[in-house]
């Protein structure tokens, strides 16, 4: 299904930008789900200086690596927030 809609990339091509934050219990359940159903959602990445940096799907990527799954569904996205105003402005001044 994914191979028709999304590219399949080697996990080694994708660079994580975030560490694992789920608890070991949660992560174990994610891996069990991936064993049963595969990686259901494509991993989103941006290309910067020729490298593919993951922006969404870090746990799925790490789970796939742990399970020795070599290729995962992936989708290139553009940097999503470049057009946003400075994030500092997004925080209400009352809580600064």
């Amino acid at each position, binding site marked *: 299904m994914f191979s028709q809609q999304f590219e399949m990339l080697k996990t080694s091509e994708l*660079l*994580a*930008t*975030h*560490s694992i*934050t*789920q*608890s*070991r*219990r*949660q992560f174990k*359940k*994610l891996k069990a*789900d991936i064993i049963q*159903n595969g990686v*259901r*959602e494509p991993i*989103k990445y*941006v290309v*910067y*200086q020729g*490298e593919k*940096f*993951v*922006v*969404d*799907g*870090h*746990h799925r990527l790490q789970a796939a690596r742990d399970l020795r799954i070599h290729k995962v569904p992936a989708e290139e996205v553009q*940097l*999503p*927030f*470049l057009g*946003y105003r*400075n*994030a*500092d402005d*997004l*925080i*209400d001044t*009352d*809580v*600064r």
Partner: protein
Amino acid sequence: MAIWQYDLHLIPRKAIEDLFSTVPPSLARKTFDEVAWWKNYQPVFDYESEIGSFLSPREFWSDEAKAWGEEDGTSIEVWFEQKLVTDIYVRINVASLDVNVLEKLTGLTARCEALFLTADLEVIEPDLQNLTAHIKQSNAFRFVENPEQFLSKNVDRLRVA
């Protein structure tokens, strides 16, 4: 999870105090993973309704968890084993911070008699000022503020990770 999300776990204050006598500034990853934090301190109020008052319930891939909010936005997941809460996992969308949601979240955490545990395993009080200060120090915030600069500053480190 996404780079623009700021992640937190809720940990019962009493479970931490049981273990350390006091509240330490941070936890070791091993400690975090090995302790069944909620085992003896289940939330005793209708937390599902409270979460539902500020985030909409959503379908979730596991039948061992309930989830509210958006997968790649602000989200709360409550995980269960044999109907008992095992984890409460929060992801805050730093790209569209909503102070009302942060207020509700700190209120929920206080009612659970819990503390926030950050992605760096720092233990912080459920206080709005405190939370926003930590968010502003986070990678998620730096990324949202200037994605290219964030990647540029971290490109070498990320290549070898």
